[in-house]
């Protein structure tokens, strides 16, 4: 019997068509528990498509997307339960306060969390206490993102899918966010972050996959123990091949 744990997320020769056009082409990568994987690429290369395929919103034309070792197509609901997904713009209700949003989404997910737990999650994402009872209609993008992250924390899902999570955030908020993601990964979560932010990816990711034209054109170890510098990744991003 093998001791090797299955990858938390795995794309195996994954191809996806959208509107008859191949958006992903034989994409293969995996994310292990406790790892932050940065899927880096420009606009329209298939980053969000990859996330939507793991979520079961898109079906592969060929290949497989696996969540915790199981093809998504076999158990979409189970796969979704295992993942907390943060889209680029936090998908929350503007007529509800932060607390109400958290309570509503958690109820729908069938999770029971008391007020103290919500308070703790909002403390952890550093959302201003005086804003927590206000409707999200008056929130900045960064504040909304914090609520969405608090929701992900409260759901305590083993996998985090982040779609351009720092887009539109100020530098301080970006740093805070990266620290939080790092802490979550260190706590055992598997994090797949798709982004076009080279420096952000290098700052937080353990590994970076470079996506171009729907195919993975390079994969690098990053972070403090990484084998490649931010400048090299940047050159690869702009040139299309590793230096």
């Amino acid at each position: 019997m093998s001791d090797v744990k299955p990858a938390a997320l795995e794309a195996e020769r994954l191809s996806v068509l959208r509107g008859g056009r191949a958006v992903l082409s034989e994409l293969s990568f995996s994310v292990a528990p406790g790892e932050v994987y940065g899927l880096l690429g420009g606009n329209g290369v298939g980053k969000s498509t990859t996330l939507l395929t793991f979520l079961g919103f898109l079906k592969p034309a060929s290949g497989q997307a696996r969540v915790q070792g199981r093809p998504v197509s076999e158990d979409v609901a189970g796969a979704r339960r295992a993942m907390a997904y943060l889209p680029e713009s936090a998908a929350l209700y503007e007529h509800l306060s932060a607390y109400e949003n958290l309570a509503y989404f958690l109820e729908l997910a069938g999770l029971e969390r008391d007020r103290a737990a919500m308070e703790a999650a909002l403390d952890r994402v550093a959302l201003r206490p005086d804003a927590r009872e206000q409707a999200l209609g008056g929130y900045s993008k960064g504040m909304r993102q914090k609520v969405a992250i608090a929701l992900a924390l409260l759901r305590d899902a083993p996998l985090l899918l982040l779609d351009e999570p720092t887009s539109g955030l100020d530098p301080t908020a970006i740093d805070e966010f990266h620290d939080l993601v790092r802490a979550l990964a260190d706590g055992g979560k598997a994090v797949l972050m798709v982004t076009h932010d080279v420096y952000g990816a290098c700052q937080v990711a353990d590994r970076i996959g470079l996506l171009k034209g729907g195919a993975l054109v390079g994969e690098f170890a990053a972070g403090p123990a990484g084998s490649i510098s931010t400048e090299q990744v940047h050159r690869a991003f702009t040139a299309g091949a590793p230096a």
Partner: protein
Amino acid sequence: MSVVRQIARDEARYWRRSQLAVAASVLFLLLAVVTLVVTALRISHETTLRAHHQAEAEAAFLAQPDRHPHRMIHYGHFVFRTPPPLARFDPGIDAVTGSALFLEGHRQNSASFAEAGASAYLGGLSWLTPALVYQLFAPLLLIILGHGALAREREGRTLQALASLGITPGQLVLGKGLALGAALGLALIPLVLTVALGVGAGEAFAPALGMIGAYALYLGLWAGVALLFSSVLAERGAVLVALTALWLALTLLLPSLAVNNTERLVPIEGKTEGDLALLSELRKLGDGHNAADPAFAKLKQDLLDQYNVDSVEALPVNFRGIVASKAEADLTETMNRFAEARMRQEAAQNSLLARHGWLSPLLALAEASRALAGTDLANHHRFLREAEALRFDFVQRLNGVHAEGLSYLDDVRRSSDPEAEARTRVSGENWQVLQAFRFEPQAPAARLEAAGESLLILLVWCLGLMLALKRFAGRLAP
């Protein structure tokens, strides 16, 4: 709490925080309550007034002094159509058909408006009845509440967030539908209270429940339409525009076109043409005031033969009274033939118009509503027939008094001989032949049957919509 109920609860919370939804709800309820109160007061007033007029007319007839019975035939009598209990919700065609009828010998008069104050109801928004408020404006409320139900989730990308939590499109649509159903239920409260008052005033349960059911179906249909459009179109603005256009088409444009189409397919001749044709037929009959009219020669001979006498003077009955009775029967037969033909045409027109409910559910609801309330065309025809039966009955009973109670010779001489004239005055006790009149709408079962086809149309609309919702909302993609 189930996911569906949680979604419904949040939708209601959204409405409570939406100025548009709150304003629309308050305005609708205000409109419904005001029209209900105003209409209930008006109908209550009219019921009392018409009952009073009826009693007064009967008392006046019975109080007439001794006189020639034929003068009483021309003295005539009024009958009034008292509104049924559910008329306080749907007065139906009362406002356009008239509610009072003058009954007299030799003619069938048209219904007219009895109340001195009726002209006050002809201006302003007196046409705005509670039924019309529910038929026209309740759908608008549901459009305002429901247009964003699903489109808002798509626009805010929460559809994706919900799906990522495992919420299915079916659960989402059911939750939103439950919320709209609850709103619909609240909107129906004024109607339910009014109908309950109608039951308290003597209405049977079956039509009352049928009335509530018909409006629930109609509003459920609009809630479904709002959900369907909200699930199919991408943006709230587009949904609102499309639903408003549909509302205009189904509640204003199509009913108007349906009326024109009905008039074209089932034409009815105008009143003047009809009256002229009737007059032409009546002229072929004998003059009941002239016993010497050749049209009654055979009648005269038959009577002479029957009683084996040589002259009308020798008859044991007053020949003039017999002629009047025969003439009235002939006239009535002809007038009824024309009246029934016209009513058949009107009923055919009405039936065809109601069948346009397949195109516009408002027409189906309006027909069902009037039928259940007892304020539809069929009940107006029933009033006309009952009034005519009463007219014919008392006219013929007076002709009977004329034939049996008066001497023919006195009758002939009464213009020139005061003593003979005095003897032709019969006792006022004879006026008791007049039967009391109290109009009652069709029995509950008959009204339900009359509303059946329209209710079926509404049901088919609802089923079709549910199928469409199942088909399209199931495809709700994040």
